[in-house]
């Protein structure tokens, strides 16, 4: 394998039509042409078929088979033509060095440094002031691009619409009573007036009475009659923790399988979630409706920088 390209000096021989480089690749060009021709006819029919299928509003499958077979067959035909019947060579082309000569490079550098230098070094003040102005422009043009997009977080992430006395309602606005859930039942609730609102979503679970007494010290009265309420927003990435394993009293987040032990206070036992689900303190009012006793004990949802 020589490192020299074929010599391109001197007159080239005229191209002979029986030059092996120009011959079809196929052993039997006639057969190859026949196959390609059949393929292209099939392709044509396929496209006609697609036209018909579209006209009669045929199913997705009919549209796809006609269009797909048409494309496949026509493509196969053209490709077979190119591969088997057109000159394959091998032909050679020289690579030319495309980088400039040393002299050209030096001239370019000189143009920049000397011609530019002539003006910049002498008028350094102007250059500096231009740079200052352009930098200022660059910075302030970013303001509308970024700041106008949306509001500042402020305290929004630290509070929800749950307040002392907020009534627990379902997504349909139905008020939840103490008789609604059986032991082992689970329900998605919101504060009244904020149904469907993402930060306010709460999962209400009814534990057996004796289990609810085991909820964390200092928060035993955050549940009532076996009911406990936690933020449904996973503390990992905010997915709704809708999967409740009733026999083990575990909430499992369907997104990345963080497990929260409900009885222990929705404490994460496994998986990527770092913090327990914030608990909503609830109670029963005189008419049997469930109400919140206040907002959550911590900001809901995933972690962020300002979270203490």
């Amino acid at each position, binding site marked *: 394998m020589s490192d020299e390209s074929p010599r391109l000096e001197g007159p080239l021989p005229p191209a002979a039509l029986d030059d092996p480089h120009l011959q079809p690749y196929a052993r*039997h060009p006639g*057969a190859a042409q026949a196959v390609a021709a059949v393929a292209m006819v099939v392709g044509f029919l396929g496209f006609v078929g697609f036209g018909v299928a579209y006209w009669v509003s045929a199913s997705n499958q009919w549209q796809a088979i006609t269009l797909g077979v048409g494309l*496949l067959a026509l493509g196969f035909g053209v490709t077979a033509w190119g*591969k088997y019947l057109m000159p394959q060579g091998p032909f050679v082309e020289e690579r030319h060095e495309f980088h400039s000569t040393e002299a050209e490079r030096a001239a370019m550098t000189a143009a920049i440094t000397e011609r530019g230098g002539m003006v910049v070094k002498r008028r350094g003040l102007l250059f500096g002031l231009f740079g200052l102005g352009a930098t200022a422009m660059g910075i302030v043009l970013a303001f509308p691009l970024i700041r106008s997009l949306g509001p500042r977080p402020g305290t929004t992430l630290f509070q929800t619409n749950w307040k002392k006395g907020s009534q627990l309602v379902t997504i349909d606005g139905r008020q939840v*009573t103490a008789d*609604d859930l*059986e032991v082992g*039942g689970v329900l998605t609730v919101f504060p009244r007036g904020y149904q469907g609102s993402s930060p306010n979503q709460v999962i209400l679970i009814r534990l057996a009475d004796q289990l609810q007494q085991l909820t964390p010290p200092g928060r035993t009265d955050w549940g009532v009659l076996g009911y406990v309420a936690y933020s449904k927003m996973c503390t990992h990435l905010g997915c709704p923790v*809708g999967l409740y394993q009733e*026999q083990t009293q575990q909430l499992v987040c369907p997104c990345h399988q963080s497990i929260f032990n409900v009885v222990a206070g929705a404490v994460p036992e496994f998986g990527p979630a770092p913090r327990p689900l914030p608990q909503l303190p609830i109670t029963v009012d005189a008419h049997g409706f469930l109400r919140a006793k206040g907002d959550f004990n911590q900001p809901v949802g995933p972690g962020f920088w300002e979270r203490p």
Partner: protein
Amino acid sequence: MRRLLNTRSMAPLALVAAVGIFGLLAFASGAGSAGAAPTTTLPKLTTTSTTATPIGQPTRPSVGSVLKNNSPSNQTGLYYVQLPKSFIAPGQALFAANCSSCHGPEALGTVRAPNLQGLGAGTVDFWVSTGRMPLANSSVQATRKPPRFNRLQTLEIAAWVQSLTPGVGVQVPVVNTSQADLESGGTLFTLNCAACHTITGAGDALMDGAYAPSLHLATPTQIVEAIRSGPGNMPHFGAGNITNTEARDISAYVTGVIQHPANPGGVGLGGIGPVGEGFVGLLVGVGALMLVCFWIGDRT
């Protein structure tokens, strides 16, 4: 011609063949429509109009359930039946022969199996009619399998267990989905069921070897029984949470849309979303095209 059928040109032919087979499969499954939900038929039984209350709850109907169920029960398309007393004796015999070794002769449970008293005929019907019971190995979650008993025998066993605690527990429902609201059923399914069973009802793994099963073989009766009795790790959805009408709508949605998805786009690829799609896109799509490259180009 034989020369053309060498390995180089086999690739596009193989592609066409694979596409053809795939296409035939897809034609078979494509462009279907939601099938009518089957209604279960039972021997003539007396009907009751109230749901029996489960253990642990106050025995008087709750305010909420009275408010929600004040329409005559036969208009909801879902009502509960009381199994005839003639079922009890053969049920006891069946239970003694097949179930008492684990559940005890009075269904009070042993170390191997839980207490069945108070769970109700509907609960028993669910477990037995889905074939989950009798269960050989209680250390793993029971799976649906062909039921050991026919419908009559299943109801007889259920009747006997119910007779141990009359009036308590989930009753056997009769579900008529013909007037169901599919839109309501779909909304309820998404909110209450999809988190465990997936939005396409394919089922998925839970913790510690448990799993939420696929819904593709469930009957409307079994669906309502499961909703009310909360088998295994499934929560209990009583009438105060999901009303009878809502349970009917959910079972219509499951037996209709979930079990017979329209799938106009072609083969459903398992209903598990991008996992199946990624496999097909990479292996079939990119793979087939790489085979075509192999045909067109050189090997050196």
